[in-house]
């Protein structure tokens, strides 16, 4: 066979999987994002960072039970801590985190969960996850926010499910 056509054959043998493999990956991503529900944060809305003390829900940061096993955690981020710094959540509960910043850009990443958000002044960040395993989960500010950035660590304490049912 002509060497040039052999070259084209190799090129096609490479190009076809180069198209097929990324498409397969994309299909898997779309399924997990929209059918399994591992979603990224979206456009929730704006808030005035100077008026957080009078703007619900940020006027009362903390954990609220919406229904049995269903919670909402309202958190504000500021130099160099989170309010509240610790959240206690019964195992098995589904929690929606609603977070905003009072000053500069912060991060909100709860270890060993998909919760990973940028926290931007003027914007509301929202993500939902379920905590199945009891234990302590550190929450890291993972965007440089100033001289004390490395001190900005919060905690989510997931208590055994027994306590949760007792609460109900």
């Amino acid at each position, binding site marked *: 066979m002509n060497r040039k056509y052999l070259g084209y054959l190799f090129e096609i043998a490479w190009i076809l999987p180069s198209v097929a493999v990324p498409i397969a990956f994309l299909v898997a991503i779309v399924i997990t994002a929209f059918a399994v529900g591992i979603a990224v944060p979206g456009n929730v809305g704006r808030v005035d960072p100077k008026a957080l003390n009078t703007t619900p829900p940020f006027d009362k940061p903390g954990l609220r039970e919406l229904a049995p096993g269903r919670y909402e955690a309202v958190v504000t981020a500021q130099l160099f801590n989170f309010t509240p710094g610790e959240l206690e959540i019964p195992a098995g509960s589904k929690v929606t985190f609603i977070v905003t910043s009072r000053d500069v850009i912060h991060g909100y990443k709860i270890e060993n969960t998909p919760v990973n958000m940028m926290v931007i002044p003027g914007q509301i960040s929202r993500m939902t996850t379920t905590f199945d395993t009891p234990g302590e989960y550190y929450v890291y*500010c993972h965007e440089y926010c100033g001289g004390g950035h490395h001190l900005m660590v919060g905690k989510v304490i997931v208590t055994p499910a027994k306590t949760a049912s007792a609460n109900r």
Partner: protein
Amino acid sequence: MATARVSGVSIAAERAEVGVFATEYRLTGLNLLVAFIALAIGGLFGVLQALQYNGIDLYKPIAPVLRGGYYQGLALHGVLNVLVFTTFFIIGWLTFVTSRSLGIPLASRALGWTTFGVMTAGLLIAALPLLLNNATVLFTFYPPLKADPLFYIGLTLVVVGTWLLLINQVMMLRQWRAANPAARIPLPAFMAIVTMTMWVICTFGVAAEMLFLLIPWSLGLVPGTDPVLARTLFWFTGHPIVYFWLLPVYISWYNFVPQQAGGRLFSDPMARVSFILFLILSTPIGMHHQYTDPGISEIWKLVHAIFTFGVFFPSLLTFFNVVASLENGGRARGGKGWLVWVFSLPWREPSFTAQVLAMILFAFGGAGGLINASYNINLVVHNTSWVAGHFHLTVGTAVTLSFMGITYWLVPHLTGRRLWSPMMALVQAWTWFVGMGIFSHWMHMLGLLSMPRRTAIGAMREIQPEWEALLPMVAVGAIIMFVSAILYYLNMVLTITAGKRDAVPMVPFARAVSGPEDSPRVLDNFKPWLVIAFTLIVINYAPTLIRLVSEMQFIPGIRSW
């Protein structure tokens, strides 16, 4: 063996050519000098960071000079390495490539000097607040962290300076086309012009951020700025900037490494197609850096994810084409078998070896990049040390080690002095490869354990024991790279000052197995591709940008360091 040697070849014509390009060579040399001075200072802070992670704080002894400690060092590390080093090297390199490939000098040498002058002035203006701890906002300078206005003005001047090279290139292309109406644009010049065109288009984002948001705000002309709008404009430029770093490396991998390997480029048409795809697809994908941002809809994030997977395609074309060219070289040198030809490659040639080692780590960097681009999978790694591990494989190795490799033939070519020690250069390439491999592997691992990036880990109250077990390897990698850097700089200084005055080595331009005669002519006509590029940018960015501008908030600036 002789075919692959880049040094020691001398012909009278080559010497005469060098005389014609004296100004271009001076400009290239000056740009490289600024670039590598920046890398030396920036790189040093990288070592301090890795030691700080392990509780060795070397910021206290230097506090009388730099008050800002870890974060000021981090700002210098980022700005000097990924903004200054890359940009100056690329402008110098592309000046060289364009003029030598077209065979004509810069269309306007005055404009060439202005390019260098504006960039250098910008660098000095930005350096002042950086060194005085008045711009400890890192290389992303996300507002409302508020730096001294000189920082923003200086960086803007550096970017504006780079635009002038494209003007020169377009004028040169016109001259060249008038003289060669039927010929195809030589591949290296074609790629250099595509790179600069892509760069100028994508820098509209950061230029708008600087001119309309950050500069007026830092000067106190407006009461605040909108952080999400600023981030979106930043990443409009911030992703394509990685192609601005990579494409000049690809220029070397496509046009010079095959010759150094003793073979030919496998396919000119495939190379041209991949660069046109980079021109079209590099910019409308920037929101994949904002998957975790509020204020941007999931749908646009997903669209950008899909296009990001699209730009993976020309990267895969490049992978195939470059490896096929290496195989062509290996076989031309007598290599046999499916893979054994690898051992026939010129591994004693430091320029070649550095760039092939860079390619190997880049394969891992590319795979990691695909993970980062994967929409919700990104939630596992976003802003952890995984990301820092990732881009030390890409910009820190694929780009930096390749640039070092290029200088192993380019500096002797520019100065007419023989490389002082090829053996030292070989050891340098291998130590960078090993050091970065170690550093990056453990940074990735730590990221999977949720260790945040851009954080003074050594000063944290909550260091996890799992991290402490892995952190020493980060320092080991950094120290090996430090040794590598010393070998590099020693070799370069000795080459320039004490290198044997030698015959000027030839520029190792490669020929192609399947040459430009097999490339469709439409690839050399930029207009249709520019129309497609602009259309995609408008589709992918206009709805979000228009909404963000209409909702704009004025958030006051803060100096929190």
